[in-house]
């Protein structure tokens, strides 16, 4: 399907963040009520666990043209369901390498641990991801001939 999106003049990355309900999502809330400054490029999707995010969702998002995807979950050992984040961690190692192998810069996919108490870390993580992806430029994998 030909691209019908408008060409943006100034590059503002679109980043998707899957946030675990029990930690990162609350962390995002805390960042908000604490009035931490952070870029507005990140769209948050609440999930019940970082383990709920299968690689398919990440791949689909990147192929659809998103510039970056983050999964934000509980620190290892803190999973509400005991082991969801451990399984995510294993998958993420493989996925990150696979994406890099196919030519999608590894920075475009990030897994980070953010607890409910880490409002400041949430804003820092978002800022860092935005900076890195802005520096990379738009995700143009599909246009590479």
């Amino acid at each position, binding site marked *: 399907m030909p691209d019908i999106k408008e060409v943006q003049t100034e590059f503002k990355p679109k980043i998707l963040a899957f946030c675990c309900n029990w930690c990162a999502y609350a962390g995002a809330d805390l960042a908000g009520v604490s009035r931490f400054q952070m870029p507005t490029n990140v769209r948050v999707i609440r999930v019940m666990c970082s383990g709920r995010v299968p*690689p398919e969702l990440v*791949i*689909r998002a990147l*192929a659809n*043209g998103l510039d970056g995807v983050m999964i934000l979950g509980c620190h290892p*050992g803190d999973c509400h369901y005991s082991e969801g984040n451990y399984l995510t961690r294993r998958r993420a*190692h493989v996925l990150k*390498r696979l*994406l890099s192998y*196919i030519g999608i810069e590894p920075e475009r996919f990030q897994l980070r641990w953010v607890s409910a108490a880490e409002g400041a870390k949430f804003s820092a993580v978002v800022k860092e991801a935005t900076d890195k992806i802005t520096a990379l430029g738009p995700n143009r994998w599909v246009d590479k001939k």
Partner: protein
Amino acid sequence: MKTSSKEVQDSVKKLFEDGRISHFIGYEAGSDSLRVTPCFLKSGQTVSRLVWNPLCANNLAKYLLDLRKVEGKVGILVKGCDSRSVVELLKENQIERDRVFIVGVPCSGIVDGEKLLAVLGISPGDVVAVEDGGDAFLVTTREGKRRVRKEQVLRGECLVCRYPTPVIYDVLLGEAIPSLPWVRDDYSLVRELEELSAEEKARYWNRELSQCIRCYACRNVCPVCNCPECIFDKKAPRWLSKANDISENLVYHLIRAFHVAGKCVDCGECERACPMGIPLRRLNKKVEKDLLELFGYTAGIDVEQQPPLTKYQVGDLDEFL
């Protein structure tokens, strides 16, 4: 391939006579001399159809899934790689061990027909038969016998095969082959690509994957692709548009590579089936290599071994802070 078609036929005949199997899945001669085709037997009377030669590329393990419901035991002929697929099917409880009878054949490599024709400079019609001759293939052509060094004409997966002898079997026909002399670097194909820049990798894969016509042969031929309903066939939610464009092709191939992660035994069937010549093994090999390096895991060796992405250790590598 010291084992002969005759040995396979005799042994299968005996299995039928002794009532140990009710069905058998093997190979028979194909519609031309460079092809074989899967063969399904229901009695010992027709065993003379069976063949075993260096053209028997198909991984027959997939067909065990179709014969799950039949009466009696299903016999199957497996090479080293095929046996590893059987291990994976057992691991997933797709088949029951006591419902299959595994006839193993040590395999010292399968011919890549296209390579063979190119090396010999002949056309398909000129080939009469291909036999195993130790370190070379003996090719009977219309003009006479020719010897071709195996390394020149083997299929890609056979060049890096670590398991020429089946890892699981009820009976083994012929002597076990401990290793193949030409196998050296398992992952040179992967490393070559890993060293490229992101831009170069993107261009390489974009070019390769844009050729995909999404016939799904790679999925359908794959023994570990056995979901009753594939994610790509699901209507709601639709994971994959039917429109053929590069972003959909990317989604298809990446998700597939991930779905066979930890199950792929590099039997090479996906690449063999692909009509467009997409180097699919290069994708699957990458995941295989990572699983080996990260978790020390090799698929299809031991039925008791748990797949690496379904378990964890607290002390796993953590690149994410």
